[in-house]
């Protein structure tokens, strides 16, 4: 499969958008306008490549590091940033924060503060698509740490038994030595090298690949998503990634890798790169201004949305 220049530049742009957005969040944290956020930095190729196959009517379930997944799925940057800053204009009216961002409009359903918590729900999105007889699919993102959670493993089985149109995407952030939240753990949390070794346990196909080459992810994810759309059931994919700091220079940085490649291929020039970056920076700046300038929720809002009205 040969990707067209436009598609390639789109993939690149989405990755830049994610990184730029997260750097914007970092700046708001420095400015004391945002509290704690779990960053996705390093995983951009996965979110960008997976969502490049999705339409608005497809859904994703995400994690405690949701920003990349949500942005790639098209969630509104301004309302996301406002949510992260706890503002009334946020996707969640400031009541959920980064860990709980949902943007239903685009199927970004959603971040989750509980490790593995979104995975059964993503099966529910797939079930709804199946019942409605559409060819829409859902993606369930989770980490290698989350892969052990009972609910995640139960859902792999349920998806296989019900042939749900979904793809499980595990982002393994410690492919070399096992870590948890940055701590090099003394006892392993996994006794296998590849999470996809769990796929046969549910009679489903599975593959493991590096997650910093956006085109490779694009190809692998595309096959699994097409399979789901055709009604052939779920797939378990693992992509190995490395969590990076803001602008860490690393051979595993998906953005740097792709920039080099696109430049080598003559698809991206220095000028075009600057243009893309400054366009994305402008969008993020706009989101930051929107967030900072937005009002706090009213005190009475604390009591709304516990239940919705109507019956």
């Amino acid at each position, binding site marked *: 499969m040969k990707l067209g220049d436009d598609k390639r530049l789109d993939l690149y742009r989405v990755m830049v958008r994610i990184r730029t957005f997260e750097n914007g969040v970092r700046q708001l944290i420095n400015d004391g306008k945002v509290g704690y956020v779990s960053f996705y930095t390093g995983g951009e190729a996965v979110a960008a490549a997976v969502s490049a196959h999705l339409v608005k009517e497809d859904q994703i379930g995400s994690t405690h590091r949701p920003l990349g997944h949500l942005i790639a799925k098209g969630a509104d940057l301004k309302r996301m940033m406002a949510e992260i800053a706890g503002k009334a204009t946020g996707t969640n009216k400031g009541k959920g924060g980064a860990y709980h961002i949902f943007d239903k409009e685009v199927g970004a359903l959603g971040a989750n503060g509980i490790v593995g*918590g979104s995975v059964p729900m993503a099966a529910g999105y797939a079930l709804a698509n199946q019942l409605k007889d559409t060819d829409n699919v859902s993606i369930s993102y989770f980490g290698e740490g989350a892969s052990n959670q009972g609910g995640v493993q*139960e859902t792999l089985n*349920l998806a296989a038994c019900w042939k749900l149109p979904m793809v499980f995407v595990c982002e393994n952030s410690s492919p070399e030595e096992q870590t948890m939240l940055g701590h090099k753990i003394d006892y392993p949390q996994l006794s296998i090298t590849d999470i996809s070794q769990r796929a046969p346990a549910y009679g489903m196909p599975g593959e493991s690949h590096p997650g910093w080459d956006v085109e490779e992810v694009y190809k692998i994810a595309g096959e699994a998503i097409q399979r789901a759309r055709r009604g052939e059931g779920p797939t378990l994919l693992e992509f190995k990634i490395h969590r990076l700091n803001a602008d860490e220079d690393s051979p595993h940085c998906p953005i740097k890798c792709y920039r080099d490649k696109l430049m080598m291929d003559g698809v991206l020039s220095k000028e075009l790169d600057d243009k893309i970056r400054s366009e994305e920076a402008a969008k993020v700046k706009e989101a930051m201004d929107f967030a900072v300038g937005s009002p706090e929720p009213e005190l009475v809002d604390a009591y709304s949305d*516990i239940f919705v009205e109507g019956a």
Partner: protein
Amino acid sequence: MSRTITYAEAICEAQRDALRSDPSVILFGENVAAPWRPATKGLKDEFGKERVRDAPITETAFIGAGVGAAIMGIKPIVELMLIDFGLVAMDQILNQMAKTTYMTGGNVNVPMVLRAIYGARGGGAATHSECLYGIYAHMPGMKVVVPSNPYDAKGLLTTAINDPNPVVFFEHIRLSNMEGEVPEESYSIPFGVANTLREGTDVTVVAVGRMVQEALKAADELKGKISVEVIDPRTLVPLDEEAILRSVQKTGRLVVVDEDYERCGFSAEVAAVVAEKGFHNLKAPVARVANPNVPLPFNKTLENHVLPDAEKIVRAIKNVVK
């Protein structure tokens, strides 16, 4: 005109009505398609295995799938075989099902019903006998329904299925065969509206589920001696505080009957509400007749010993009315 069916049949009927009238309603859970289970009997045959779907023993996965499907506009009725088993899935129930609406600021909502059998059955022991609705009612975002008779069961379940919010629906194992008049046509009973089953002037007895029968027995037994008002709130969340307070205003006395564990349970909540908001009307201490914080013992004599019943209610009433 009148027709008598059982509590379980009434529950089945509410589901059948919903499955018939609304294509977005589905039902799943362990063995929901098994032909011998009274609350789902015949539904698989009528609606097919896709809409009435057997699930693997993975409560976390399938309850979570219910939450996800509900977010997508499906109206899932998810059955837990017994409420005790829900403990394996509390994250999906209390974090996701109950709170997603609030945490997303209403960006999504969860029109889902979780049905479960609950209650002491006579020899079920402590993993097959509990109520635990105190736990569900503790978590904001969940509506909690505990019907005490066939008529209410059908009407409340219809309301639950139509409610755009998460609802847990508690079906007492020992009410399953209880018969009662139930209209054939579909009808709803609003949440948060208590049912006054006996009017009285000396004492207010509040009870839900199977305990309503025991409260009525106690009221009958005291007839002519003490005038007992029996109130069935029907839903714990929302709770019809007004009806309870109004009754206590009249009677000046409160006995709360609850099959659930006493500590931090529904009986505590009702007692607290009245101690806060009805204090000046109270002429006597509030009394609770609940499970005295004992895991349900297997031996039936012991089980009965710890369960509330008419006799204990009578004793409690006599204690506060003297």
